[in-house]
């Protein structure tokens, strides 16, 4: 071999034309196949068809009854543990998954009846200071990916993208959503000085200072605020012509379901909270029209771009999520889907992972325009809780609507001031439960 390596003369000669041509054909063919793989398949409504794509082991996982497994896992973990076992068992779990027991509330492990209860644990006040930046992390976890949304595609991992419309849902012209009238006489005027809500003047400074606002109208603010806290959530739409049969899914477009918007605040606290969010958002003009499609990504304001960020919560992490900024949630869309693992390993292999899985898209606005937050379920954590939406039920039994179908609830009655559910940075919004 040494002789051959050192003594064989190197002789350069031009490739025959046919070989070069064949090489070019092969390169073109590879490009074409790659493009065909990346091409988006659309249905008759122009919506992307979401299918399971990935290597063979992803298809094997896809064949498993993941939703049933998830519910079974939830049931097992909801079983009450003997009191003597709780400190030992939960300490072992904490050790295995790196939970910090110094920051949990309550600190006594005997007070957690099951692993499920420990998984959904609370943290002591003050252990998570909220940074004054305009965007903070909504949860404990790992930043999987972030960047800008290009041509309505969100990058899942390098080179694999999914449709923003599929993630958030599309507002189609002519749908009930498009003709909802926001007819409340509401505006917030004069740069941070006072607000008019349904004809009543409120001093924002007074509201922030927790003193009762002065009234000049025929309706008292407490009446108005009480009506807001006992407001209802309305299911207004399904998409893709789905015919869901689940009892919690409206049977036809326009069905209304009474549902309390969860709030423990009294009238004054509600106004103070809403005004606080209004100030942080810099609200000073009548709210802009809701007819603008915020989900397409093609209608951002001049000088703005659409960004995305993905935070992954590992099994040992604190599993409640909080508001990442001052914003108003106008609506939620619940997509009933699969429950694949969303671990980084799976995210690298399963295309469309985040639009295949069950998720709740919370859509609204912040000081810079559109803002959306999407908690995505996984095999072990199929139950997504939203504190201010007591009607939301995820990971239920029953026939599933096709991928892309969703049910929608609006929160327009939750706050007369902001026409949505106002949230301050760091405010707890909900979380993920086992099963």
């Amino acid at each position, binding site marked *: 071999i040494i002789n051959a390596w050192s003594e064989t003369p190197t002789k350069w000669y031009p490739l025959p034309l046919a070989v070069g041509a064949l090489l070019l054909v092969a390169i073109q063919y590879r490009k074409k196949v790659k493009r065909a793989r990346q091409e988006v398949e659309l249905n008759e409504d122009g919506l992307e068809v979401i299918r399971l794509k990935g290597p063979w082991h992803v298809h094997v996982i896809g064949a498993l009854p993941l939703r049933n497994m998830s519910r079974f896992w939830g049931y097992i973990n909801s079983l009450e543990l003997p009191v003597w076992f709780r400190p030992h068992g939960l300490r072992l779990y904490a050790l295995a998954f790196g939970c910090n027991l110094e920051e949990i509330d309550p600190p006594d492990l005997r007070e957690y009846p099951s692993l499920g209860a420990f998984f959904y644990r609370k943290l002591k006040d003050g252990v*998570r200071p909220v940074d004054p*930046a305009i965007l903070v992390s909504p949860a404990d976890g790992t930043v999987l990916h972030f960047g800008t949304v290009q041509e309505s595609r969100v990058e899942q991992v390098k080179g694999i993208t999914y449709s923003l419309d599929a993630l958030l849902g599309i507002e189609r012209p002519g749908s009930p959503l498009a003709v909802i009238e926001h007819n409340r006489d509401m505006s917030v005027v004069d740069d941070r000085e006072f607000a008019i809500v349904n004809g009543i003047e409120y001093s924002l400074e007074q509201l922030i200072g927790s003193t009762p606002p002065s009234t000049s109208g025929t309706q008292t603010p407490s009446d108005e605020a009480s009506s807001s806290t006992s407001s209802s959530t309305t299911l207004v739409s399904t998409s893709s012509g789905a015919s869901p049969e689940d009892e919690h899914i409206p049977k036809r477009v326009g069905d209304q379901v009474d549902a309390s918007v969860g709030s423990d605040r009294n009238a004054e606290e509600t106004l103070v909270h809403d005004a606080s969010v209004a100030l942080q958002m810099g609200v000073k003009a009548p709210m802009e029209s809701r007819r603008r499609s*915020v989900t397409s990504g093609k209608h951002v*304001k001049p000088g703005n771009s659409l960004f995305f960020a993905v*935070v992954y*919560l590992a099994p040992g992490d604190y599993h409640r*999520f909080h508001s990442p900024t001052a914003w108003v949630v106008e609506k939620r869309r619940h997509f009933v889907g699969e429950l694949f693992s969303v671990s980084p390993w799976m995210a690298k292999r399963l295309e469309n992972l985040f639009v295949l899985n069950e*998720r709740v898209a919370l859509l609204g606005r*912040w000081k810079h325009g559109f803002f*959306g937050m999407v908690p995505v379920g996984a095999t072990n954590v199929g139950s997504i809780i939203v504190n201010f939406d007591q009607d939301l039920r995820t990971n239920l039994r029953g026939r599933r609507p096709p991928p892309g179908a969703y049910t929608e609830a609006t929160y327009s009655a939750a706050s007369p001031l902001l026409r949505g559910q106002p949230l301050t940075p760091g405010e707890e919004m909900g979380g993920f439960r086992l099963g």
Partner: protein
Amino acid sequence: STVVLVFEAPSDFEFTVHPSQKVKMGERLGDV
């Protein structure tokens, strides 16, 4: 489980984290 954020922001918005970075709730993700 995962939380995906999608938002409109001024084009000069910058993320202050890097991929695979561990974050805690309330930590800065980005700013303008």
